[in-house]
């Protein structure tokens, strides 16, 4: 595995995808952002299967931004699979959600999320959050050693 600087964004809402990309752009993050639209595709990408069969499975993203409500396989199930696989066990995962339902927060941390971020309605706050996310996970955080 090698470091790629890639951010994997798992998000089914096209508006949220566009706004998130815009927010990262505004906060001057130059990292490549790969967008997948459901839980199944996220797993395919991570484990280089299905539509992403040709991908180099060793090239893991730097961080995964994972929406909780997703079509097919939901965010928490994706997180469970990530934590269960030796190749992705230590991958930083930030759970994104619209709600601040206590149950979502508790389940996310129980399943091994590294962080939990609520998507604010206010776009300004959203840009702030994205900036912090990028700063923390891509600059400050010491990545886990490669397996």
């Amino acid at each position, binding site marked *: 595995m090698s470091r790629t600087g890639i951010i994997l964004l798992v998000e089914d809402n096209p*508006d949220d995808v566009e*706004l998130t990309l815009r927010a990262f752009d505004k906060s001057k993050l130059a990292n490549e952002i790969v967008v997948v639209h459901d839980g199944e595709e996220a797993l395919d990408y991570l484990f280089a299967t299905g539509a992403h069969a040709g991908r180099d499975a060793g090239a893991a993203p730097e961080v995964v931004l994972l929406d*909780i409500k997703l079509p097919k396989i939901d965010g928490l199930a994706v997180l469970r699979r990530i934590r269960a696989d030796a190749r992705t066990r230590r991958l930083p995962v930030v759970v994104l959600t*619209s*709600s601040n339902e206590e149950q979502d927060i508790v389940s996310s941390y129980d399943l091994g999320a590294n962080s939990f971020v609520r998507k604010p*309605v206010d776009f300004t706050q*959203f840009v702030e959050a994205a900036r912090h996310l990028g700063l923390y996970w891509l600059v400050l955080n010491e990545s886990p050693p490669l397996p």
Partner: protein
Amino acid sequence: MSRSVLIVDDSLTVRMDLAEAFEAAGFQALRCGSAAEARAALAGGTVGAAVLDVLLPDGDGVALLAEIRNAPWGGSLPVLVLSTEAEVKDRARGLHAGADEYVGKPYDTGYVVSKVRELLRVREGNPDAGSRTVLIIDDSETYRAALGGAFERAGYGVLLASTGEEGLRVAADRRPAVLIVDGMMPGIDGATVIRRVRLDAALRGVPCLLFTASEDGGAELRALDAGADAFVRKEEDVEVILAKVAALLRRPGAAPAPVTASLAGPRKILAVDDSQTYLQELSEALRDEGYDVVQARSGEEALELLALQSVDCILLDLVMPGLGGQETCRRIKAAPVVRDIPLVLLTAREDRAAMIEGFGAGADDYISKSSELDVLRARVRAQLRRKQFEDENRRIREDLLRSELEASEARGARQVAEARAALADELERKNRELEAFSYSVSHDLRAPLRSIDGFGRALVEDCADRLDERGRHHLDRIRAATQRMGELIDDLLALSRVSRSELRREPVKLSDVARSVMEELRRKEPERSATVELQDGLLVEADLRLVRILLENLLGNAWKFTAKKASPRIELGARVEFPGEPHFFVRDNGAGFDMAYAGKLFSPFQRLHSDKEFPGTGIGLATVQRIVDRHGGRVWAEGAVGRGAAIFFTLPSARSGGRS
């Protein structure tokens, strides 16, 4: 079961006589000559029943009885008082002190032992029931011993009796599993014994085996006629008898002993006559049959006694001074508890009119004093038997009724439980639906808002050059509305969460929670100052999380509505109410409200101020109301425009009637 019987009597003869009788009946006898000795024996804790004399050298038996009844262990100890003082007033004293039975001297040892055993049986159940006990009734001591030995070797418990009368008493007393009786005996013969057993509701289920030495071919027929279950000849091998008994015991339905008192068991008869001579004669004749006889000299005395102690049969003289026999009879038959006791009128007159009058007053039988005593005894036996059958029938009817009642109660309980389970399921389903609904509201309703706000902002940033002041204003309004919609959704969700989360009560320091909430408010607006007074030591038994939300709303409101005051004041305190829960309150000197609208304050989305004056969603007090409701408390408001508001609430603990 404790088989120790305490015998307290100052007479050595009585002590020895009773001790011998009790020991022969399988009890352990503890002999005491004085109250002091009795106290020491009772302190040992092994006494299962007591027989007390009234006159003791160092005290009074009745006083000792009162002591026993007052002791923590003494309430249920069977106590029989035995006394020469057998006048009604003496009986009254003994029975009032809590005697289970009062027997006058001269006494019949058989009666005393049987009565004690019956009292023990009532308390502890029949110790012999269901056991393999065989009663052998035979006048030949040799044969009795030989047969008894054979049964003992075969593992049976063995009871022996030498006459038919004794045999019946032992049977009533010990309830053997099977009865073996000799056909030929002096006194009542074997067939008569079996016939009496068959007539006794308590004993009639006991299998009877009749044996005889006679070569008479009709003996077997007579035995079976009398109701014997099996017949054997004496010269037959003991093994044959053992096999027959084993076969009888295998018969289904022979085992459980009925709860009814046996006819041959200890019976008490009240004899009422103004003639001491006749009373004496009558008592002796009845005592010979094993009955305990209580004497009364007048109708008044008889009524007084019946108010204290029940008896099994009443013999009542028709002609007496004072309250006559007829009137006494009428009064007995009118009293609810004693009217079922068989009552036989006695008279010297062979008078048809008197007889009819007697029956009219409710007597069960009528007998002339000139009749033979044998006839009198037979009549008494017949009355006792009739009463026993009535009791037995009543018991069976009551048992039937009770089991029917129990069955219908069980049916009812089952239906209630089923209905309740169905309701609980329905509620559970509704709650799940509501939860799913709130969840999707929180996720799905917010997403479009984010898009509206985000793209509005993008429009301002990317196309600023193509928008004039007016266009930018419109966009600002759109974004402000989006913000407000977001807040409304958040508050609504908070309100629904307050309603559906589980209530977990614990001791909560209200003052500490308030302090932490105030710190938070100050941290958000460090530039503001206010006088805050939080009463110390306020304690409730409530859900900590909900209490925090409650105070966040109340103190948050007070903080908000005092923002425009020159010297804001916020106070948390409690008014102690007797009786009742303390009334907590949060008071401020802020904008206040018009009391005319006080009722509207706690409904969702109701606001008494414009958003421009004081921003808000109108959900805060609705949430407060919901939280107080869930704790089973009350909430209300007092205020005046421009002079501040006070919100009062109670949070009853679960014990004091709060719902959970």
